[in-house]
């Protein structure tokens, strides 16, 4: 809302510097957006929150100023002389859709002379950014900007049947508005029609056919109230927003309609001449009585933390237009003003007292009681994981929670369900709530490849949204990894991370098959039989799908399981008293035999001396080992808990291990 400094002065004395006015209004709820000098006047732009439509007119702002600076407020009485015939005899008004239009009033002025507005009015309108048109149109705009009640003036001579019907549009009806665009009207909208056609889009914009022209002599002045929700829908549907629709959307002062109508007629008589017909056509339900509100004075301190003297409370409320109907030692009872529909409860009055008394009065050094807070387990685990991954050279990404439908379909390790979708895309086609972080990370990888980055190692910790039918989706937090390294390298990072959050944890790998991954270069990670995650190298088609030029390996792990398995407070194990002995083993096995199985046998056979089994290498040589054979090189670390293990003991144990591996896996010791 832009207000004119000169205009405001008509209602309230302004003897303060404008900067002081701006600051104080800001501290009372009207944010200052800027001030411009317009031909010697000041255009002050104020931000009005949606609960304060009363400040969408100069009078409302003047009232705030009057309260804050303790100045008198003068409001025009708006008592135009009506010496024409009764308006009832000239025009009929009917409301067919009371849900959309609660009240419609009409006055008629006859014999006006259309012409330019006087300088004082055009200057004020120009200051606030409105272009003058002619005296009558300017007056309706002026009164709107004066009190916040939108008005419309019709060329009465062009209203067919001398009647106004407020109704919903009939099928296929259109209207050419005063902006000379034609709008298609739809059910649910509220239109103003004469005996035959729509003449205005109620509360939004008038029609071109009945607009005030130079030849107009008789005028119908509309002052009405329209349903805020319906106005909003109509303005949105037609993409037609006006000063009128803006105010009706926020709600007008039902009891101020008549004042605005009278004020408009008063100015027409003054500036355009003519004769006002006697009375008003006023159609609508009786006005609801405003309900009194009780303010218990002790509640002010209970909420604000400071007491405000009873006398001051009563004065603030009265200055703002509340009518005190009872004042007792512990409470006051007031009826709020008609222009403040936002005041219905005790807490609303407390806010009024607070903002006028001043929030600066509230101290910023209250002794707030201390309480213990705890860091959540999931945050501590996530923090540990982030530490390991950044140490391993991975950068953390944050990607959008949605992807497009095709991308969502590329990888879904956690569910077979279709992803949920938003009605409109969150960003460029991305309307599917993602089922995996991997596609998003691959897209981030492509962004970086396009920038010729050579090292692109990314991880993200974020949610995926797994549909659960009628229940809200299962939102699972995942850890996604996306690397230019090999399967083994990424697996190593995962192993280091798992070891960091729980050195004793036991997990396994199992076969996997995904369209995105190369056959045999991917696996599932299992923790006690539960799916902990997926790891795989992209196959060429997968790389192509994401527009990647270089190899990529991705992984995704379930954070809930990581959090569950984490050992945040490790227990001390006494350090060994005796030295360790190590033995290298070189076992030749068939190609199908897997390391993990051999390792299990080695470990089991080594008990109770087993300390560690280090994988060294796999060696293949058809000539020396035979076709389909490989040799597994490993170092076994043994340690006795009762005494130093002798070489003989270690050798004997090694022989038993070789024998066991021979039995179970067909392994032979390579000489």
């Amino acid at each position, binding site marked *: 809302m832009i207000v004119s400094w000169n205009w405001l002065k008509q209602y309230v004395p302004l003897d303060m510097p404008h900067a002081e006015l701006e600051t104080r209004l800001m501290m009372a709820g009207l944010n200052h957006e800027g001030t411009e000098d317009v031909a010697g006047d000041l255009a002050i732009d104020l931000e009005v929150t949606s609960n304060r439509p009363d400040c969408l007119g100069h009078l409302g702002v003047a009232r705030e100023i009057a309260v804050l600076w303790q100045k008198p407020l003068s409001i025009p009485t708006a008592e135009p002389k009506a010496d024409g015939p009764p308006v009832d005899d000239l025009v009929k008004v009917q409301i067919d859709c009371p849900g959309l239009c609660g009240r419609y009033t009409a006055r008629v002025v006859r014999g006006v002379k259309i012409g330019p507005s006087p300088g004082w009015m055009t200057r004020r309108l120009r200051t606030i950014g409105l272009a003058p048109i002619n005296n009558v149109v300017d007056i309706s705009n002026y009164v709107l900007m004066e009190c916040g009640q939108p008005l419309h003036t019709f060329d009465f001579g062009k209203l067919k049947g001398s009647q106004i019907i407020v109704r919903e549009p009939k099928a296929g009806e259109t209207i050419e508005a005063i902006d000379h665009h034609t709008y298609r009207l739809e059910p649910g909208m509220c239109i103003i029609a004469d005996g035959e056609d729509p003449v205005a889009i109620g509360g939004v914009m008038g029609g071109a056919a009945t607009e005030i022209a130079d030849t107009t002599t008789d005028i119908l002045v509309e002052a009405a109230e329209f349903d*805020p929700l319906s106005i909003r829908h109509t303005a949105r549907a037609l993409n037609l927003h006006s000063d009128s629709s803006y105010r009706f959307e926020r709600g007008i002062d039902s009891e101020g309609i008549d004042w605005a109508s009278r004020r408009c007629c008063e100015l027409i008589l003054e500036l355009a001449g003519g004769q006002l017909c006697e009375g008003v056509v006023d159609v609508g339900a009786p006005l609801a009585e405003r309900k009194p509100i009780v303010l218990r004075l002790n509640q002010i301190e209970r909420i604000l933390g400071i007491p405000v003297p009873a006398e001051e409370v009563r004065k603030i409320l009265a200055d703002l237009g509340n009518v005190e109907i009872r004042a007792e030692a512990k409470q006051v009872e007031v009826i709020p003003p008609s222009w403040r529909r936002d005041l219905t409860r005790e*807490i609303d009055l407390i806010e009024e007292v607070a903002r006028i008394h001043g*929030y*600066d009065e509230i101290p910023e050094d*209250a002794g707030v009681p201390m*309480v213990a807070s705890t860091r959540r387990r999931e945050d501590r685990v996530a923090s540990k994981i982030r530490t390991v991954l950044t140490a391993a*050279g991975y950068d953390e990404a944050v990607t959008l*929670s949605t992807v497009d439908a095709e991308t969502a379909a590329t990888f879904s390790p956690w569910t077979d369900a279709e992803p*949920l979708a938003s009605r409109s895309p969150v960003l460029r086609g991305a309307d599917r*709530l993602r089922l995996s972080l991997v596609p998003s990370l691959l897209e981030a990888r492509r962004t970086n490849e396009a920038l010729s980055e050579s090292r692109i190692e990314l991880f993200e910790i974020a949610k995926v949204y797994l549909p659960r039918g009628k229940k809200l989706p299962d939102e699972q937090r995942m850890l996604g990894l996306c690397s230019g390294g090999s399967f083994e390298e990424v697996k190593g990072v995962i192993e280091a991370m798992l070891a960091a959050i729980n050195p004793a944890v036991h997990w396994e790998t199992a076969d996997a098959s995904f369209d995105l991954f190369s056959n045999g270069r991917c696996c599932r990670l299992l923790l006690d039989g539960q799916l902990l995650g997926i790891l795989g190298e992209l196959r060429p088609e997968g790389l192509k799908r994401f527009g990647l030029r270089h190899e990529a390996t991705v992984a995704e792990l379930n954070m809930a399981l990581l959090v569950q398995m984490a050992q945040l407070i490790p227990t001390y194990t006494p350090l060994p008293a005796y030295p360790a002995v190590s033995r290298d083993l070189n076992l030749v096995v068939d190609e199908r035999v897997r390391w993990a199985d051999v390792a299990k046998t080695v470990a089991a056979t080594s008990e109770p001396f087993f300390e560690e089994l280090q994988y060294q290498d796999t060696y293949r040589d058809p000539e020396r080992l035979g076709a389909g054979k490989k040799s597994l090189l490993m170092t076994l670390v043994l340690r006795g808990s009762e005494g130093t293990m002798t070489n003989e003991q270690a050798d004997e144990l090694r022989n038993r291990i070789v024998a066991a591996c021979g039995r179970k896996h067909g392994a032979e010791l390579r000489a």
Partner: protein
Amino acid sequence: MALAEFLNTLDELAKQATAQFEAAADAVSLEAARVEFLGAKSGRLKDVQKGLGQVDKADKPAAGKRFNEVKQQLETLFSAATKRIANGGCVETASDFDPTIPGKRPVLGHLHPITQTIEELVDIMGRLGFTVAEGPEIEDLWHNFDALNIPLEHPARDPLDNFYLATAETMSGQNKTEPKWMLRSQTSTVQIRVMEKTQPPVRIISLGRVYRPDTADATHYPMFHQIEGLLIDRHVTMADLKSILRLFAESFFEDDVHVRFRPSFFPFTEPSVEVDMSWAGDWIEFGGAGMVDPNVLRAVGYDPEEVSGLAFGLGIERICMRRHGITDIREFYKNDVRFLHQF
């Protein structure tokens, strides 16, 4: 054998060996020296060791100790000579050591600046007694609107201002059906969920991703992060709100910061205020705050006559951008590693 004799032999050997190890100019001569002195089978040190057996019993510990010292000394000399020869015969001296040559750096990853800001905020709020709470990002309309005092006719529920989820009907082209779920537009939903299952006192911060249909530009993105604080107890006042925010600001800016309230409007708080903080001689906008609206307290089954509450919220991106001088919010989600490496 007398101890003195043994020690003399040992010292003589050490002297000769030192000279030869230091003089060795290539691997061949060094190997020859090694075999001569340290050879496992017939090295001269081995010979001396044999003499150790003939030393008087009482002197044996002293002789043994000296023998080990010399042995270690020779081994050290040998390995230094090996290194020297491997380095092309250069001895490391001040003249050819260049400490300005870059070190060998391990590659470190970087945490996303949003994460870093969140960690900082959570850390400070944790010290002020607030515990983190989380809730779903896909919400029902009760938690996102009704319980937060945003009734059906409220403009905040407009489909153009929210990401409602599609249902089977809307997927098939019928757009009129009433939406059931949405991407949450604020993290206040978490506060409702916590209050629904917790009795006061409550002292939490909720944080996470929120979604609003803004066209992406330098200052808007349809997804962003919020952090919101909530404190419900008996006798909670706006003075507590101001004081907590001041403590927070002093921690965050590491300075003597003051807090200013400007009246504002939010459906779920009454009174509602915008919070400014004085910093570097200016007032900067911090976020929104207020006292929890009695309707919200009633919606979760609390008695507004018994308890009161304060709430505050802020956008994490905005704080993060100001903190690091980032001028385009879209950078956060591009994940250009050159951007990430700056933090």
